[in-house]
């Protein structure tokens, strides 16, 4: 193998102004390369997110096949209208996020800040609705496993005792408790992602305010945008799974 010299200055000559960008990292040869690489990294991270939720989706599916009737009945305790409202809120926030990225890329600083702020407001609305839903469930005792105490609808309590005396009793509270265990874990994990998203959005909002982004460098806005879309997309799957079972 032999090596030939490539003059980096002349190689990157066409992008001279970019090479001197303060965000340019020395181990890349061009700004485009750096941007593309960041994007690959983000997509890979989002793949891990999908698999993180994927495990829970599979678990939900397996338990649903174990307690099909209970899962269908349990979902009627969730308020479909609130779920639908949240779906709309997140869809709107996805659109404002797209607009924020677009504004950043087209050097519209004011608009970027405005759309990011709007996205954050949507995120808070989502969490607010979720808070009302959660507190209703807490009051009614629609809780996971041993915390489940909801007594309406004459669901027989499952027999207590050593495990071998209670192999999967259909029709008793087990199926409901399992449904709500998954409900709280999956929507809870999603909620944590929304909270993290609010943090990230605030961070880029502050940077956008300082005018750090332009058509030459808007990677953070783009990547947070991707993250936000994935968080929305996961909700798009959670909503029919929990609120629209039939």
């Amino acid at each position, binding site marked *: 193998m032999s090596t030939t010299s*490539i003059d980096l200055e002349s190689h990157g000559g066409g992008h001279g102004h970019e090479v001197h960008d303060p965000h340019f990292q020395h181990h890349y040869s061009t700004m485009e390369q750096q941007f593309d690489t960041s994007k*690959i990294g983000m997509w*890979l991270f989002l793949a*891990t997110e999908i698999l993180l939720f994927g495990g829970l989706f599979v678990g939900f599916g397996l338990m649903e096949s174990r307690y099909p009737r209970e899962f269908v009945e349990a979902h009627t305790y969730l308020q479909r209208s609130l779920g639908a409202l949240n779906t709309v809120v997140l869809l709107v926030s996805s659109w404002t996020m797209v607009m924020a990225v677009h504004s950043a890329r087209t050097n519209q600083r004011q608009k970027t800040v405005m759309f990011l702020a709007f996205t954050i407001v949507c995120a808070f609305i989502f969490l607010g609705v979720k808070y009302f839903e959660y507190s209703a469930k807490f009051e009614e005792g629609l809780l996971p496993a041993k915390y489940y105490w909801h007594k309406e609808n004459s669901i027989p309590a499952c027999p207590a005792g050593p495990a071998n005396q209670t192999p999967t009793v259909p029709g008793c509270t087990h199926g409901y408790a399992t449904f709500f265990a998954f409900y709280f874990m999956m929507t809870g994990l999603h909620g944590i992602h929304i909270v993290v998203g609010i943090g990230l959005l605030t961070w880029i909002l502050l940077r956008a305010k300082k005018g750090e982004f332009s058509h030459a460098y808007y990677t953070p806005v783009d990547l947070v945008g991707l993250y936000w879309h994935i968080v929305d997309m996961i909700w798009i799957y959670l909503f029919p799974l929990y609120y629209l079972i039939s």
Partner: protein
Amino acid sequence: MEHVVKSGAPVGERPRPAKNYLNETTGIWSWMTTLDHKRIGIMYLCGVLTAFFIGGMFALLVRLSLMTPKHMIFGKVIMDAEQYNRAFTLHGIVMVFLFIIPAIPGSLTNFVLPLMIGAKDVAFPRLNLASFYLWCLGLVMALSSIAMGPVDTGWTFYTPYSTTTSGAVPMAAMAAFVLGFSSIFTGLNFIATVHKLRAPGMGWFDMPLFVWGMYSTAVIQVLATPVIGITLVLMVLERVFGIGIFDARMGGDPVLFQHFFWFYSHPAVYIMILPGMAIISELMPTFSRKTIFGYRAIAYASVSLALVSFIVWGHHMFVAGQSQVANVVFSALTFLVAIPSGVKMFNWLTTMYKGNVSFETPMLYALSFMITFAIGGLTGIPLATLATDIHLTDTYFVVAHFHYVMMGGTVIAFLGGLHYWWPKMTGRMYSETWGRVSAVLVFVGFNLTFLTQFILGSRGMPRRYYNYLDQFQPLHMYSTFGSWILALGFFIMAAYLLASLRKPADAPDNPWGGTTMEWQTSSPPIAHNFDEQPVLEHEPYDYRPKVTA
């Protein structure tokens, strides 16, 4: 022994640069905040070797205790049953999560992968450093779980035992969770690096096979690790809050945990072995001074092993209570693993054919690998075969099988890689004589330790047993003797490697005559890896005599 450069690319033409990555900046702070992949690689190396030492000490303790059925040495009981259970659990957790998964990716790959593809660094240097610090956090959490109450669940954390036993199970499980994210960050970094930072002229099929192997590994790291993450979180939630997903008393299912666990942990086996295979693919052509045979076959085999690894997890559960249809399907799928593994073995063998084979320390490890990995692979056949697995599973046969793959495969390849790249990383040659002595001791000690365990297992000795029948005593004793020979080999290795650091830099740029790009830079490399951006102009592993223009 005086080191002689036997053939290959010319060396020592350039004077050794005064500044390299080791002395470019100095002080502990310059290391702790470094973004240089080479320094992070060195820090990772120190870390994983420490973990290997801790895990090894637990292994020696377990072996010593098993030497006699009464666990007596000189009239004293070494460990009671509870201490024994904790010792093998800690051995497993430390070796799997802290050593073998990060070992090759974190240390050797971090150091050489960017050099091999002619890059200045990995794609995300800060993420790389974060990965190392997460590893450190995982280490601290794992060690603090020992102080808080050692865990006795086995490294598999099977429910419902793990949700009911005493000990700091949540801390240990969260340590594994944190280490999982460390592993994800490393894998993510390598994929982006390989995609975007290859030297000009280097297409996908011009990459060294080590890079292919590590790329496949990284895919598994990114795609499988999140599942173990969520599984361990569920287990901890179950234990702390009683959410009931894995608890039969609350309508859950303990077997679901095993499905989740093996969905990660089987691919994790390939996170461990693929880097080992990747190193062998470098050692074979270099020390045979001949181009690799079947380049594309090996590259495809790496990728297909990565893909197949995701669909065979159920073979850990043939007697766990999954459906019989699942057993049959998973058995059939498992045989798919044999094919790419076999293809690699045949290609490595054929690479030696008509080569010019020398036996420096790294090559001794590569040859050891051929034999130990063959045993590891072939003993997988009766375990994949349903009728014989019923008897063999959950016995010492399985223990021996995975140690042959993990230690006889990955660790031996890791040691080969460590000796191969040691001159590049440190700028120093180690004592070749002691290197060979140690390689032979490791080979002999390893085989004595674990060949005996195949017989123990097939005779019906279940794994994780504190008390055993007297009839098994002689084999246990030989196994323990083997562990001492192994320990002696490692002790000698530590001594001569550390001794090599005390002398001034003496390693040539290309001591073995390798053809890949890491040998084109100085030993040790300069901070930015290359003086000039290297450009690849011909296929990898070209050992044809050079025609100078």
